[in-house]
């Protein structure tokens, strides 16, 4: 009987068709190891999966040899399995790798290692040189590649405060990197901590968003580059807004927000999504704000559907493409233990939420990272464990977007 159930489940899961999506059966990127072996799929902006040509790659941190290090696994679209994990970081303790696709099945990675952001390119033929991005302490890198150039934002330590910087690199040959520009995103020295930046590009403009504690609590700030300037940004604006009708609180400074993700979509748009605790009774929810060329960031809106209102959401990630597709994913506890949920943006509205087939149900599924490839397929990686705090596996699925857009 159990065998029949498993067979039926396997058939159902082999290709799960849900509304606009047709997901493949999940595969394991990296297996569960010992009881003390933990995978982490985390980065500023949650960019841990990318597609270059016919190759999908996933970057993560785990401590298989008792030291947290950065690993990469790749898979051809037609392949069933991912390659064995390739260690990308050096000898230090390494965390929070961000990944971006270059041309020609190549990928650039940046991560924090011994309190410095390191970076290198990985191609089908090997790894390029390892470089330190900043001279002093730095953390939380996020990468973007476009228009033949690699761009990176990160938090650099200046005295007791952390400040967001923007770096530009030329890719030289197959895997070389040449630094070209560096500037602070906010030209005014910070009044308080700035953390967890990420960036997107649209119509030749760079849009950066980050966490900022300048009002005495954490808010999301954003800034766009000045047209024609190699390294200059307009004055930052507040992206996460106070709830409508909010009055000055007798205590504290304001509600909490955390971990912004950004993605461009269509020909004019960029979207920012983050975890937001304005409804403090139910925990964090996923909120967002669209940005448009010449209009900047618009009002805040809820990304999750109404059924998520009484549950906790964490770990927002976004993927968009030039055809106007935009998808959000996050960890969601509305059905008990954590599941990965998706929503997609159409005509200015977020869809009803979809529990990711194979990434929801019994056990704990969380920390998603997503990307859309040039054919409109949605690639999803996430962390799976049987119970909270237990050993982990990394899982992957891909879906075709069945509807025209």
């Amino acid at each position, binding site marked *: 009987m159990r065998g029949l159930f498993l067979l039926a489940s396997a058939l159902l899961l082999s290709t799960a068709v849900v509304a606009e999506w047709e997901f493949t059966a999940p595969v394991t990127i990296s297996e569960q190891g010992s009881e003390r072996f933990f995978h982490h799929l985390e980065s500023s902006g949650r960019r841990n999966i990318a597609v270059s040509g016919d190759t999908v790659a996933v970057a993560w941190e785990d401590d298989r040899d008792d030291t947290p290090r950065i690993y990469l696994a790749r898979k051809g679209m037609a392949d069933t399995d991912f390659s064995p994990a390739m260690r990308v970081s050096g000898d230090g303790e390494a965390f929070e790798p961000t990944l971006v696709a270059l041309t020609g099945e190549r990928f650039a990675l940046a991560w924090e290692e011994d309190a410095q952001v390191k970076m290198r390119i990985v191609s089908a033929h090997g790894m390029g040189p390892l470089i330190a991005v900043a001279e002093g302490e730095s953390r939380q890198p996020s990468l973007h590649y476009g228009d033949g150039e690699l761009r990176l934002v990160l938090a650099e330590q200046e005295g007791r405060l952390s400040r967001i910087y923007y770096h530009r690199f030329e890719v030289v040959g197959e895997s070389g990197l040449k630094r070209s520009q560096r500037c602070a995103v906010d030209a005014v020295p910070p009044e308080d901590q700035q953390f967890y930046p990420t960036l997107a590009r649209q119509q030749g403009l760079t849009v950066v968003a980050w966490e900022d504690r300048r009002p005495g609590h*954490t808010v999301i700030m954003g800034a766009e580059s000045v047209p024609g300037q190699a390294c200059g940004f307009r004055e930052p604006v507040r992206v996460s807004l106070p709830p409508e009708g909010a009055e000055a609180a007798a205590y504290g400074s304001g509600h909490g927000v955390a971990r912004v993700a950004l993605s461009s979509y269509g020909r004019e748009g960029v979207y920012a999504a983050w975890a937001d*605790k304005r409804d403090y009774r139910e925990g*964090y929810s996923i909120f967002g704000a669209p940005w448009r060329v010449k209009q900047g960031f618009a009002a805040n809106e809820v990304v999750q559907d109404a059924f998520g209102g009484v549950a*906790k959401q964490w770990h927002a990630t976004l993927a968009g493409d030039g055809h106007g597709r935009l998808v959000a994913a996050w960890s969601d506890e509305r059905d008990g233990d954590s599941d990965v949920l998706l929503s997609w943006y159409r005509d200015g509205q977020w869809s009803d939420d979809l529990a990711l087939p194979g990434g929801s149900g019994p056990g704990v599924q969380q920390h998603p990272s997503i990307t859309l490839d040039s054919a409109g397929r949605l690639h999803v990686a996430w962390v799976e464990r049987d119970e909270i*705090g237990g050993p982990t596996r990394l899982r992957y699925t891909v879906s075709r977007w069945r509807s025209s857009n």
Partner: protein
Amino acid sequence: MLRSVLLLFSLLLALPILADAPKDYPFLPFDEAMSQAQAEGKPVFVYFGRYGCGYCELTNKEAFSQPEVRERYTQHYVLAYVDAESGKRLRLPSGERITERELGTRYNAFATPVFSYLDSNGTARHRLIGAQTKEALLEADEVARAKLAGGE
């Protein structure tokens, strides 16, 4: 005039506007507190706060400022403070390295403040959510210690 300005300045400095851990308490990072608790066989009291948290500031001012609360909590527990939005890293007893923010998700710190009473293995035996009075903290201390002693 100068005296008034200095007095105002010193009052402003004294205001706990950032809602960090309450003053005059030996709060430790979570992993250090767990190590100390295991060495001493004591339970851990974890304060999950966040930067700018209003109810944290209220609780600090109204409850943690009371000598009776300070005496009981410093005597009965190893104290840990966690900024539930922070990227600061710590090591769990299992060996896993995570951020303070992720620790908040593990202990269901969906609001701030959340006060968790853990045994020395890190299992939550009792917790309080939201702003607390002196009386609530003193009562919770008794309830938590009864649960911890009974292995509930």
